[in-house]
């Protein structure tokens, strides 16, 4: 069963115009475009019963923001990567496929400023403080700097 699994994932990956690469032991990485993402995830979740989404990771790649959906299935982990441009950071929400993704999408929204269309809680903050200045870049972008954020936030130091 578990030997068959990467092959099955690979088949669906080819349908989505991508290719499966196994980087480390049991780590399967697929990179799909934003349009094909939901179709591929639908196959992965419903047909291959990979229903456990571990988390959603966001990465700043310079030009693009990469979103990695980390799934786990018995011994295998499946990492589905997709890119959104930094100039227009909008992605499709997957909570209709995986309802448990709702908080992870909020986290990526907080940390990298990606807007997930279809997520009802996008206007709320999950991790960042309420008084977060809206003109600051999202904290995990490479352009944002920790010491500049510290100056803007009220951490008690400024009052002294």
């Amino acid at each position, binding site marked *: 069963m578990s030997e068959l699994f990467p092959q099955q994932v690979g088949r669906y990956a080819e349908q989505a115009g991508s290719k499966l690469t196994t980087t480390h032991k049991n780590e399967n990485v697929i990179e799909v475009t934003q349009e094909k993402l939901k179709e591929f995830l639908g196959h992965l979740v419903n047909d291959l019963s990979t229903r456990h989404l571990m988390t959603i990771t966001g990465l700043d790649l310079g030009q693009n923001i990469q979103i990695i959906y980390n799934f786990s299935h018995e011994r295998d982990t499946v990492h589905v990567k997709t890119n959104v441009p930094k100039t227009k950071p909008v992605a499709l929400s997957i909570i209709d496929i995986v309802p448990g993704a709702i908080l992870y999408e909020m986290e990526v929204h907080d940390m990298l400023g990606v807007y997930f269309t279809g997520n009802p809680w996008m206007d709320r903050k999950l991790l960042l*403080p*309420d*008084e*977060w200045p809206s003109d600051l870049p999202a*904290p995990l972008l490479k352009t944002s700097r*920790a*010491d500049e*954020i*510290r100056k803007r*936030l*009220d*951490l*008690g*130091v400024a*009052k*002294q």
Partner: protein
Amino acid sequence: MLEKLTNWSRKRSPWVFHINASSCNGCDIEIVASLMPRYDIERFGVVLVPSPKHADVLLVTGVVNAQTVDRLRRVYEQMPEPKHVIAIGACATSGGVFKGCYNAGQGVQDVVPVDMYIPGCPPRPEAIMYGVMKLLGEVK
């Protein structure tokens, strides 16, 4: 005479209120452990109360972040006089390992005046007891 009696009772039974200002839980469970049978800080009349309005001593753990800084100030303001603050752990003393994180302050003394620092990551329950006893010894 009355003043003497108040001071005596204050020293004999300090009521403490614990506030977690974004700590990692390490110091917090050690505070609770010091109330447990093994250490039993209640021998000295120290009672953990659920409201700052009843408390004489405020135990603060954790780096102060932007979400908790205002809460810490308001809790401190609600405490009746005389009030004392104990900063527990490396984070509350100076920021500890989180010094330099974008949402972490550099110790509680920037927000509220601190009377006693208990360094440690986390301090042993005995170290917490020692700190509380030392504070009581200094209170006149």
